[in-house]
């Protein structure tokens, strides 16, 4: 639509249409894929609990893959979903201090021969297979009993926060689509930081 507007504006001005076409091409490049529903990751039901002196994390992440990512998956493009979890201590004048950080990476791919979705948990190096994509995403988004930090490492006088985000790892995408993913097209999947206080 923007391209169309640009073109009409050029026509009204009566300027050289060649420049208009150039702009049209450039704008179309930016909006290469047809606009579809954006992929999303909603973080819910976060909780921390202290057991045996270790803080543990439980959370539920609802991943929604849009058509682009689903088609890519169907066409053999492996996706890497990444959870980043940090324990931070906020300071008055300085940026927050990071007390601990974890990364959980999951490889998701479609096995054409068996028509199954395979999930590789890179932390445990175990592969799981699912018949449905939702099941695979459920598996990835279901976090329980994840050891966060030893309670002894926390200083009692401070307040600590846990924050978490879930992203699609762009650097693991095939090279040709990385630029588009960085430019924020349908190829990107990013949640905001979800932050809550660290409580036993």
């Amino acid at each position, binding site marked *: 639509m923007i391209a169309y507007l640009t073109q009409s504006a050029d026509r009204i001005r009566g300027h050289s249409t060649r420049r208009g076409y150039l702009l049209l091409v450039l704008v179309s490049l930016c909006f290469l894929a047809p606009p579809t529903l954006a992929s999303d990751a909603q973080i819910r039901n976060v909780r921390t609990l202290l057991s045996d002196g270790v803080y543990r994390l439980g959370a539920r992440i609802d991943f929604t893959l849009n058509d682009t990512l689903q088609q890519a998956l169907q066409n*053999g493009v492996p996706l890497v979903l990444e959870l980043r979890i940090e324990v931070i201590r906020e300071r008055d004048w300085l940026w927050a201090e990071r007390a601990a950080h974890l990364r959980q990476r999951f490889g998701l791919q479609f096995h054409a021969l068996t028509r199954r979705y395979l999930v590789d948990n890179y932390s445990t190096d175990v592969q799981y297979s699912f018949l449905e994509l939702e099941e695979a995403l459920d598996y990835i988004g279901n976090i329980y009993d994840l050891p966060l930090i030893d309670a002894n490492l926390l200083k009692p006088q401070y307040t600590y926060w846990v924050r978490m985000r879930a992203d699609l790892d762009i650097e693991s995408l095939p090279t040709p689509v990385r630029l*588009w993913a960085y430019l924020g097209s349908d190829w990107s999947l990013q949640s905001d930081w979800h932050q809550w206080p660290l409580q036993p």
Partner: protein
Amino acid sequence: MAIATVTRSRLGILPMLVLFCILLVSLSLMSDATHNSERFGQLYSWLLLINAIGLVVLVGLIGSNLYWLVSQYRARAPGAKLTSRLVITFVVLAVVPVAVVYYFSLQFLQRGIDSWFDVQIEQALDDALELSRGSLDVRLSDLLKLTEKIASELAEMTPALVPIGLYDLRVRSTAVELAVFGMDGRIVASSSVEGTNIVPHRPPDQALLPLEQGRSYVGLDPISDAGLHVRAVVPVSSSKPGAEPLTLQALFEVPERLSTLAENVENQIVRYKKLAYLRTFLKYSYMLTLSMVLVLSLLSAVWAAFFSARRMVAPIAVLAEGTRAVAEGDYSTRLPVTSEDELGFLVRSFNDMTRRLSKARDQARRSQQRVEGQRAYLETVLGSLSSGVLSISDTGELRTVNEAACQVVGIDLSGQLGCRLSEISARHEFLEPLLSLVDARRAEQLLDWQEQVLLFDSAGRRVLMCRSAALPVSDESSGGQVVVFDDVTDLIRAQRDAAWGEVARRLAHEIKNPLTPIQLSAERLRRKYLKTMPGEEAEIMDRATRTIVQQVETLKEMVNAFGEYARAPKLQLERVDLYELLRDTAALYEGSTLRIDLDLVEPSPLLNGDAGRLRQLLHNLFKNALEAVRDREDGQLVIRSRWVLEAGDRFIDLSFADNGGGFSDEVLERLFEPYVTTKTRGTGLGLAIVKKIVEEHNGQIRAQNTEQHHACIELRFHAEAQTGLT
């Protein structure tokens, strides 16, 4: 400025080369990364960023160069036009072929990538996949049947025998693992090839789902850390009443050949499908890389165009600047030699030229200074000379004239330089005798001579002693002659006056002394013998003695007059009112035949003089006039006065004009010399004495004939006005 530019350009090339190299390497890596994502895939984003930054840097460089060029062009700096023309030429030369190559590359890229993919190939691959699935399905159904057979055998066993029978069954069936689960999911029995693996792999929920509907499950599942396995889950339905319904899970290895083939098919299909799916992006990536290469090449070319144009033009601009400096007369310009090529040669030649020019200029200046010094020296010498000096070219033109020459002839000749002598004599008749003599001698090829020349002007006769000498002929001057002359009039006159003074003294001494005895003797003769002599003799005696006495008296008078002339009595200076003196003296002649008309301009002039001598002067003039008009009835003398302001001084001019016969030409020449007279009587000393008195009073006298050929004598005295004169 130009020198600084050259230095900067030279410094600028190294970082630029490094930048180009980095960009080139980065681009080639990027192209590799696009092609083969495993090798450089990790770096792709960084490479993209580096290239983008490099391009921005290049654009910035070009922008600054462009700005520089535009500002140079506006300032009309030398070389700006040439630089822009070179830059445009370079850019056009670079852009056109690169653009053509780019266009065709894009076409090849589009068509090439599209040609990789084909619907038929895609269909064939899909078919292959389906075939693999079919083949696997056959295998799976075989294994399911085998598992069902094992389950039926297990169903016949008592629960206690199950663990033992399971081992046999596993060995027989070549299964990797057999496991029996209870209803609550507990492990009833298991047997595995890997002895270490005590805990069997649990069936996933999706495998258990069909069991609830009384169906079996068979599938190709990935087993943790063991790859794909065939998993069959079947219910163990015991015929014995009350027996617990159990579930049997059998894991079989996929035959290696089948597995490999299936994997291969799978991998290739996935690879193909992935490529097919990503081909648009792949095309864009290639286009991006290609475009970046193009833009990098273009920008590099443009920058290189700027760089080389500036480097090429810099020495030319320096030369232009230098030439301009030389044109403005600055020969000290030396240009830095920056290269060893033709331009360097040109610059070196330019430096040689300016060096020689400045040397020649210095030499010329030195010799000019020398010449000017000599000239100033000569001018000083000539200026301080009392002799007049004229230099005359070989063609008869007046070249130089000194101050004294102008003073001697009384004419400013400096305005006549370059004029021919004949032209000057035509303008100033007075100089004619001198100049015609010079011309005549030159015509005779005679340049060294010495002669006395007489000039006549209103002030009287001038005697000039002239000497001429030839000037040397040299490269700079073409010969000619120099004429030196002195006004010897006064000298000659002084000599003559001195001679006359001597004559007077001698006359007084030698003649006057015997006169008195002669007179006394004559009177004695007369007194003593006249009475004694007879009548006739007495008469002779009387006449003779009277004649003697008379003549002696006359002689005495004459000798006295000479004595008067020769004597130089000391002047009794006082303030004299000239008009009063004139009127008093004129009054004495009222009864005579001469009518004196006074036409005097007020105010009366006061002059510092001897009243007696001035009265004598006036008497002499009046007597002169009386003598001149003796034969006329209407003899008259007109005396006119006039105030003259000359060179800041006030003079009174008096003219005495009679209506007598005037002066003859011969007399006029020597009028003021003693013994020159037109009269039959008199000593001939009248005007000589007049002139002497005038000169004693620092005055001037001149005599001339009026148009009616009457005599006119003019006097000029330095005087002050009695009252204010405007």
